[in-house]
Structures are given as structure tokens and as C-alpha cells.
């Protein structure tokens, strides 16, 4: 390998460097100067520091060169990766804002550090077309997330969830690595375009699916299916959503989803180009599209149906996340430019709504001590603003116009229908399942708006009102709700940007 220009590399990775340095600064400030302060103040300061760092990285991204590629595509920059990275940083900022004021841990500097490190991992992840870098960044992200899940040391649930997450994640990482090594053996390269060339060559000599390739496809799908929590690789999700501290769960449900879906799309569409197969009704052709169609359909059905009988809001959100993963996989099944745009719009708006919903859940938990549905009884009378925000988040997740979730679903389904004939069965299934999902979202809203607050809760909240909701997290939640309404009323604000980025990146 030729000598790398380190100055060039540094300039290239400057946004990530900013994030990592901010993480270290936040840790140092917290450990050196704030040991004696109250947890709440330390969290607020650390969150503000972290947010500033992320904002700096966003500014840098907005002014960095349009196209660049280092080390044969190991590191890649184009408008599309910039856009996704900016979305990730925005998610990180929201997470930090929501977590400001939490009291679940003493180790605040470490918490912020891990969030930022995970963010850096995601940024590297989306900016690469090389198996090696993808895997390393994925591990950086995953390891940070395992620790974040375990962060509430006082809760056994938290450690239990983290351990399950870790074991499950380790296993699927092993599968992923196995698949990657098969791909390397198949093509003699770790670069996605080269792998695609090798697949083309293989198909040219034999029109059937190569068995080696079939195994590689399945193991890769398992590896990423774990990250996006698709059936049957979803088992960790309900436990982690339930057990992890609320900000960690919010981050896992939003940021990690955005990054994973983007790179999943990249790996499948760029790396496995030529081995698509087909998922047309009654015309299945083996290939990754066929596998993903099955996984998507199962995820939609299982996620939505099981969510109906949940009695905890976090578990409900977890199963709804599985269902949403099913919808989003449809974009991979369609694998067109249009569906990539729809996927990005969907996943970003979904991330906003999920973050907000978890933010509200966190505040309710601080007040009532749990996330059972009955803990939400009569919330509208205790804090109307939070309830209104939750109303927006849940209806957006359910896909009610004019909120962003509706347009997300709309564009996604349209893009799938436009991609070719024979996929109607998936859309019909998805729409039917969306209708089902409305039921459980409305269950929560019914609790909030119709049910009467339990007497002791009302009394307790009267006292809790003195322990006000932290200003930063409330502001963060309101901003998220406003974002969803604005993106719903004017979807072109984001869509035009996405379309322009996709065109400029030539994918």
C-alpha cells in the first residue's frame, strides 16, 4: 500500500475528529471541574458541550468538499453521505438534549463520551464502501451501544438487557463476518464495486445463484437484520428498549436505525448488484430481494400483531420498531433511486418521532416510576404540552396526515409500486398492517386523553410538579414535534435535499 497522506486523511475525517475530541473534552470537563456539582447540572453542561461539538461537525460537513474518495473507496464522501451524517448528528444532539436532566447515572462524562463515540462510528459507517471499514465501524457502534444499554447500574433489567444484546449482537456479528469472508473469497476484494464485478462474472458463467453467494447473502442479511431489528433477528429489541435507560433506548431506536438502514441499502445495492433475484408475486427468483421480501413481510406482521397486546409503552415501541423495519425493508426490495430517497425520508422522520416518544416516556417514568400503559392515564390533564407532543409523535408513527409519518409511508409505498410490477402484495400487506398499528397507538393516546389519572398519581404529580421537567429536554421534545409537523406540511424541504444529494452522488 502506498504512503498515505495523513494531512489529507485528517482533513477528510475532520467532522469525525471534531466529534471525538468533543467527547474527550466533555469527559475531561466533567471529571475535572464538576465532580461536586449536582447530577442534573453536570448532565446539562455535558449535554450542551456535546451538542455544540455535533453542531460544529455539522457546520464542517456543510462546508466540506463535495466528492472525495480515499484508499480505493475505504473512505468516501459525497453529498449523500454528508446528508446522512448530518441527520445522524442531529439525532445525537436530540438524544443529548433529551438526556439532559436525567438522574439514572453518576458517570455523566462517560455517558456523553459513549454517545459521541457511537455517533463517530455511525459517521464512518455511512461513509464507506469497503467491507473492512464497514465491519469495524459497525463494531465501534455496537460496542458503544452495549455499554449504553447497561448504563443504569442500579437496575438489574438494564444489565440483563445489555448482556442479551451483547450476546445476540456478537453472534450476528460473527455471521456477518463469516459472510464478508465468503465474499472476499468469492471476489478477492473487500471493495463493494469489485464484489459486484465478481458477481457479474459468476452469473455470466452460470445463470443460477452460486451456493457460496447464497450463504453470503443470508449471513449478511442476518448481520444487518440484527442491527435494524427485523424478524427473526429482533429478539433483543423488546428487552433492550425495556431495560436500557431511556436516552440510550432512544438513541438505539433512532440513530443506529438511520445509519444501519443506509449502509444496508448500500451493501445490498452496490455490493450484491446482479444477484437481486425477484420478489414478484408467484414469480420468485432466488436472490437477496426475495430474502428481504420474506423478512419484511414477516416483520410487518409480527411487529404489528404482537404490539397490540403489550402493556408497556416501551415494549410497544419496540414491536412497532420491528414493524417499521419491515416497512423500510420494502425500500430495499424496490432498490431504486426513488426508493432510496423515500427510505431516507422515512427513516429520518421515524427517528425524530421515536426520539420524541422516548423523551416523553422518560419524563413520565420520572414522575410515575414506570412505563405501563396505566401510568399514562390522564397525562393530558397533568401536562398538556407533553401530551400534545406525544399525540404528534404517535400519530406520525401511525402515518396520519399531515404529519411526516404519512408522507414517509406514502412516498415509500409509491416508490415500491413504481419500481416494477408484482410487488403489490407487499404494499397491500403493509397498508393492512398500518391500519392495525393505528389501534395500539390510539390505545396509548386514549390513556393519555380519555382515562382519568389515578388518584395517588395525581397527588404524586402535584408534588412532582415541583421537580419540574428539565427545560432542555422539554425544549428538545417540542422541537422534535415541531419538526415532524413542519416536515409533514412541507415535505419537499427535506425531499428536495435528498433528491439533489442522490443525483449529485450518482447512485
Amino acid at each position, binding site marked *: 500500500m502506498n504512503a498515505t497522506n495523513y494531512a489529507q486523511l485528517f482533513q477528510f475525517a475532520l467532522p469525525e475528529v471534531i466529534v471525538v475530541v468533543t467527547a474527550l473534552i466533555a469527559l475531561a470537563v466533567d471529571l475535572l471541574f464538576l465532580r461536586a456539582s449536582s447530577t442534573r447540572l453536570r448532565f446539562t453542561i455535558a449535554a450542551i458541550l456535546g451538542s455544540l461539538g455535533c453542531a460544529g461537525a455539522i457546520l464542517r460537513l456543510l462546508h466540506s468538499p463535495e466528492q472525495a474518495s480515499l484508499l480505493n473507496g475505504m473512505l468516501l464522501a459525497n453529498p449523500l453521505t454528508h446528508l446522512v451524517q448530518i441527520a445522524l448528528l442531529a439525532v445525537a444532539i436530540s438524544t443529548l438534549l433529551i438526556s439532559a436532566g436525567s438522574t439514572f447515572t453518576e458517570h455523566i462524562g462517560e455517558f456523553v463520551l459513549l454517545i459521541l463515540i457511537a455517533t463517530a462510528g455511525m459517521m464512518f459507517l455511512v461513509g464507506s464502501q469497503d467491507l473492512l471499514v464497514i465491519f469495524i465501524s459497525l463494531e465501534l457502534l455496537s460496542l458503544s451501544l452495549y455499554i449504553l444499554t447497561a448504563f443504569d447500574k442500579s437496575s*438489574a433489567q438494564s*444489565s*440483563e438487557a445489555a*448482556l*442479551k444484546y451483547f*450476546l*445476540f449482537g456478537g*453472534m*450476528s456479528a460473527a*455471521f456477518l463476518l463469516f459472510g464478508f469472508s465468503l465474499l472476499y473469497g468469492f471476489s478477492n476484494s473487500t471493495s463493494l464495486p469489485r464484489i459486484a464485478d465478481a458477481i457479474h462474472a459468476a452469473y455470466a458463467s452460470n445463470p*443460477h*445463484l452460486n*451456493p457460496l453467494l*447464497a*450463504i453470503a*447473502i*443470508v*449471513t449478511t*442479511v*442476518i448481520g444487518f437484520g440484527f442491527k435494524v431489528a427485523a424478524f*427473526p*433477528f429482533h*429478539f*433483543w429489541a423488546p428487552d433492550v428498549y425495556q431495560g436500557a435507560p431511556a436516552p440510550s433506548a432512544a438513541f438505539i431506536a433512532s440513530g443506529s436505525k438511520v445509519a444501519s438502514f443506509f449502509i444496508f441499502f448500500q451493501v445490498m445495492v452496490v455490493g450484491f448488484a446482479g444477484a437481486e*433475484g425477484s420478489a414478484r408475486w408467484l414469480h*420468485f*427468483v*432466488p*436472490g437477496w430481494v*426475495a*430474502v428481504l421480501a*420474506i423478512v419484511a413481510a414477516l416483520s410487518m406482521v*409480527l411487529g404489528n*400483531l*404482537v404490539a*397490540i*397486546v403489550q402493556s408497556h409503552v416501551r415494549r410497544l415501541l419496540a414491536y412497532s420498531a420491528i414493524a417499521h423495519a419491515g416497512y423500510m425493508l420494502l425500500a430495499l426490495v424496490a432498490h431504486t433511486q426513488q426508493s432510496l430517497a423515500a427510505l431516507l425520508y422515512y427513516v429520518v422522520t421515524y427517528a425524530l418521532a421515536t426520539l420524541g416518544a422516548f423523551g416523553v416516556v422518560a419524563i413520565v417514568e420520572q414522575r410515575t416510576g414506570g412505563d405501563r400503559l396505566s401510568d399514562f392515564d390522564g397525562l393530558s390533564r397533568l401536562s398538556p404540552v407533553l401530551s400534545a407532543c406525544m399525540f404528534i409523535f404517535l400519530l406520525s408513527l401511525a402515518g396520519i396526515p399531515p404529519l411526516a409519518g404519512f*408522507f414517509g409511508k406514502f412516498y415509500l409505498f*409509491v416508490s415500491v409500486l413504481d419500481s416494477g410490477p408484482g410487488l403489490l402484495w407487499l404494499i397491500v400487506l403493509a397498508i393492512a398492517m398500518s391500519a*392495525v398499528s393505528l389501534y395500539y397507538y390510539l390505545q396509548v393516546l386514549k390513556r393519555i386523553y380519555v382515562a382519568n389519572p389515578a388518584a395517588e398519581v395525581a397527588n404524586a404529580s402535584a408534588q412532582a410538579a415541583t421537580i419540574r421537567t428539565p427545560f432542555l429536554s422539554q425544549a428538545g421534545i417540542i422541537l422534535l414535534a415541531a419538526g415532524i409537523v413542519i416536515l409533514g406540511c*412541507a*415535505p*419537499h424541504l427535506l*425531499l428536495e435535499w435528498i433528491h439533489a444529494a442522490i443525483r449529485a452522488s450518482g447512485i
Partner: protein
Amino acid sequence: MTWIVQNLWLVPVLPILAAGISALAKQRNRLLAASLAIGSLALSFLLSLCAFAHVLSLSSQGLETRQVIDFRWFQFGGEWLKLGWMLDPLTAIMLVMVSFVGLLIFIFSVGYMEHDENFTRFFCFLSLFAGAMLGVVIANSLLLFFMCWEIVGLTSYLLIGFWYHKPEAAAAAKKAFIVTRIGDLGFFLGMVWLYAQTGTLLFYDHGAGCLEHSALAALVAHITTVGMAASTGIALLIFCGAAGKSGQVPLHVWLPDAMEGPTPVSALIHAATMVAAGVFLIARVYPLMSVHAGLAGPLVPTTALIVVAWVGAITAVFGALIAIAHYDIKRILAYSTISQLGYMMMGLGVGGVAVGMFHLITHAFFKSLLFLGAGSVIHGCGGEQDIRKMGGLRKSMPITFLAYTAGMLALCGFPLFFSGFWSKDAILDAANTWSVSKMPFYLGAFGALLTAFYMTRQVYYVFAGKSRLSENSSEAAHASHASATPHESPAVMTVPLVILAAFAVFLGLVGTPAWPWFQSFLDDQRATLNFAAFSGPGVASVMLASSLLVFLGLGLGWWFYGRRPIESADAPDAFGQLQPHIFSVLGHNFYVDALYGATIVRLNTGWSRVCDWLDRWVWNGAVQTVSHLVLAFAWIDNFFDANIVNAGFDEGCETVSRGGQLLALLQGGRVQSYLRTIGVALIALAVFLLWGATR
């Protein structure tokens, strides 16, 4: 000055913002609500004046006066949905009228609603209405127009039912909403059809709009299966919406009932602006209404315009006839409004945009004057609305009397000095030269006679003679103090009256045949002073005839009601004594409401019973079955997830907690089964692929 075009959106947005803020502010803050509403509308008025001056300067320089600004809203398939706003003479005049009349009525309301406990809600709704109405005026897209139009309908509903604790008010609000909705259905269908035909809903879009030449030519050329041009069909459907909003026969029934709302609302919404929106709609889409095949001259009436003219003419006489036989001061004015709206439609049909719009503008001023005057009278009489119980108010309410008389003479069309004369004369003049039929002219002339008659009747009842208020409402007087003696209203109410009176008198001077500034401004031409126009063919004779009719009407009114003062509230109506049968039919509004009640409403009730039955027993059963099925599936699924997948782990968990070793537990139980699932999935998917590949 182009900044005014760029920022024209501020005109409707300011009042809407004010409505939003006062909706969120504390209920009790009256000063804030009133000053927000009045302040925002005053700003809108100033902006409207700027816009008007801008158009005026463009037109005096002979430049293109229509300026449009379009923007993209959102993408729909491959199409961008565009909205936009425009500034042209029609918009400019309407903007100034709506914001000015609205401002005066807002100020008046401060006095009128002083004692109402829902003062802030009232101003919130009024501001929302004003914003939406201004939005209607500036819209350059039929869709935006429709959206604002619907908000206007909503606020009308809210304000008619403002005193919702009165059952009549609640019923009237519902009626208004549903009847206008019937018209709106036609409007909506027309809009959809128009979009299907032309692919755009923008009025003007640099040659690509739906009111511009290429789209219109395509619409005319497209002949539907029943042999009617698409343009005619669309125009008629859109006219349905206009007829609903503007109370044209047969959709007029809601307007008299709408008088249950507070009087300023009647003045603003149901006299000056909202009901005129239908007329404005026709004026806005006039190119569509008047387009016809081939190269015939612009004077050839199209089917759509003939329908508009006939409906207008019939409504004009219909409303005026009913107004003769009512005793409620506001209902008389309501029927008079219906009649005058008929004139406007007729003017549009026979004479074009300028003729109809001129009457719209003058009518807005004198009819809001009359309504505010009626409000002042009602306020002064402690809530009494029956004209039989009033009388003698000339002495106790002198300012109101003078202003009201000015409005009444303007409405009657008293020659030369009052605005109504000039605008009504323009309509009659155009009807006289209409090539299709002379009938609308005769109907219009008859309506003018009736107008003078019923207004004279009303004024004699209310203001002449001596007060009959105390004799009949003596019990009421005991209950509510101060209502026994009528009193003049405070200055905050009389000053708007005086201003409106001044406009009601002088506004007509901008549109006389000798100096038709208004008409030429709308048509983008230069007006010249030319007294010879009076001697043009037909002009003088029509003016003379309509003057004679007005004098005849006033004379008849005096003969019946002024000759002998009305002695008591129980005395029968003088005209009613002469023709009891006709009077009774008129008093029952030609039995139109009864007819609707017996046919459409009954049909609807029956149908809704059938639907209810179907819903309860057929559909509900089906839905219940499906939902139980889904629930059952969910339980099975959950059972699978919880008992088969998780059971192993839970089992393990219990063992472990007994042993107290969480880690050991985790290792032993759940994760195994989790990981086993991955293995199963791997095998299943791989088999699926490989089997498919070798097949």
C-alpha cells in the same frame, strides 16, 4: 414597490396570526384580544392600501397590472402542486374593501359585544374569518381559494352558532354549514374536473394557468358525452359553490337563519364579505365562464353566463318579495341581502365583471351600514328585534337614524346622490341591452320597486311615530332594567356608522356613466370624463325609469305605513290587511323551508335510519368479526413469542434467581433460544435460496 407583491401574503396571515395568539392567550384578557384583532387588521388595511396604490400606479403607467407569485407546495407523483397569490385590480379593490369594512365592524363590535363573556373567543373567530377572507381574495390557485373558502365557511358556522346555548342559533349554524356544503360539493367536483382537464389549478401561470388562453381553448374544444363543452360543465359546477355561498335560489335558505349570530357578524360575514365571496368567485373565474368556441365577439353570452343571469334575476325578485312580509329587523335585511346578491349575479351574467363587482362594493358599504345600524337599534332597545315593538327611535337615536336613512336610501337606489343608484343602474342598463332576453331587466326593475317599498316600511316601523317598546315588553322591562327606554349607542359604535354612511353616499361617484373610473380600472383602461355618456342610447331612459320606480316604491311605502302612524304593536300590517293571502305566503318564505323539510330532510332522515341499521347490524358485525380474528391472531403470536420462545428463558430465569446468579441464568436460558432462532433462520433462508437456485 414590488415588495408589496412579494409580501402580499402578509395581508391574510396577520389576522390569522392574531387569531392564533388570542386563541392561546388567557380567556379573560379582553384588551389584548380586541387590540390584537383590530391592530392586525389595521396593518392589513394599510398593506392593502399600498397594494391598491401599486396597482393604481401600474395602471396609470399603462403597464401590465396583473402580477402573480407562485411557489411549490409539495410533490405528488411526478407533479408539483403549486400555490400562489396574485395582485390585480380586482384583488386590490376587494382587499381594500374587505379590510376597511372589516376594520370598522371590528371597532363597532368592541361596543356591541362589551357585555358578552366570550368576548375574546368572538374576536379570535372574527380575526380568523378576516384572514381567510383576505386569503380568498389574493389566492391565485383554485385550491388555495377553496381552502380559504372552507375556512371562511367554518368561521361562519362558528360565529352563527356563537351563542350556542340558544337552540335556534345552534340549528342555524348547522343549517348554514350543511346548505353551503351542498354547493361546495359542486364546486369541489368542478375543481377536480378542471384539474383533470388542464393539469393545473393556478389561475395565471405565465401562459400555463387554467384561466389563460391555451387551457381555455382546450376546455372549449373538449365536448363531453352529453354534448356540452367541458368549460360549461366546470363553470356550472363552480357556480353551484358560488350559489351556496351567496345565497342564490334554491340554496338561499340558510342566510335568513344565519341572523341568529351576533349582529356585527351578520354585517361582516352575511352582508358585506363572505356572501359576496360567491360573486367574487364568479368574477375571478370570469374568463372560464365567458369562454366560447370560435371567434365570436365577447358580447355573445355563454350558457354558463345565461344561467348565472337567470338565477340572479329570480333571486333578486324572490328575496325582495319575502322581505315585504317579515317583522324581524335583521331578517328583512337578510332577505334584502339575498335580493341584492341576486342583482350582483345578474350583473355578472348580463354585463360582465365590472358591473357585478361595482354593485358588490357599494352594497358592502351600505348593507354593512344597515346591519350595524340595526345592531345599534337592537343594542339601544335592549335586544329587541321585532320592528312592531320599536317605533319613535328617530328622537332617541338621532345619529343612528340619520346613518340608517342614508343606508336605506342607498339600498333603494335614490337617484343621483346615493351609491346604490349608480351601481344598480349599471346592472339595469346592462340587462336592458342583453341580447338573450328582456325578462331579467323587467325582473330587476320590479325588484327595485319592491326594495324601495320594503325599506320604507321598515324605516317607518322602526323610527317613526312614538315608541311602542314599553307597552308590550313591560314584563321584560321589569326583568331587565334600562331596556324600556331606548338610548343612543356609544361613540365606538356610532363613529363607524357615520364613516360607513359617508361611503354609502359618495362611493357611487366613481362609477357613473359619465366617469366610469371603477369599470375601466377593472378592465385596465383609462377613464375619461364624458357627460355625453348620459345621452347614450338607453342610458338616460333606464336611469329615468329606475328613478320613477324608486319614487313609486317610496310613495307606496309612505301610503301604507307613513300616512297614519302605527299605533300599537298588535296592529296588523297595513299591506297584510289589503292582501292577506299573498302576505301569508310571503311571510312563510314561499314555503321553501317547509318544502325542503318535507322532501329532502325527510328523505335524508329515512336514509340515515337505514344506514344506522346497516351500520349497527351488518357492518359492525363484520368489523367485530375481523377485529376478533385479528385479536386472536395477536394472542396466538404473543403466546408463541412469550411461551415458546421466552418460556425457556423464563424457566431458566427462575432457576437462576433461585441460584442468585443472573449471569448463569442468562447464559443458560433465553439467549440460547434466541441464538437458536438465528441458526434456524440461517438454515431456512439458505435452503430457500439454494433450493430455488437449483430448481
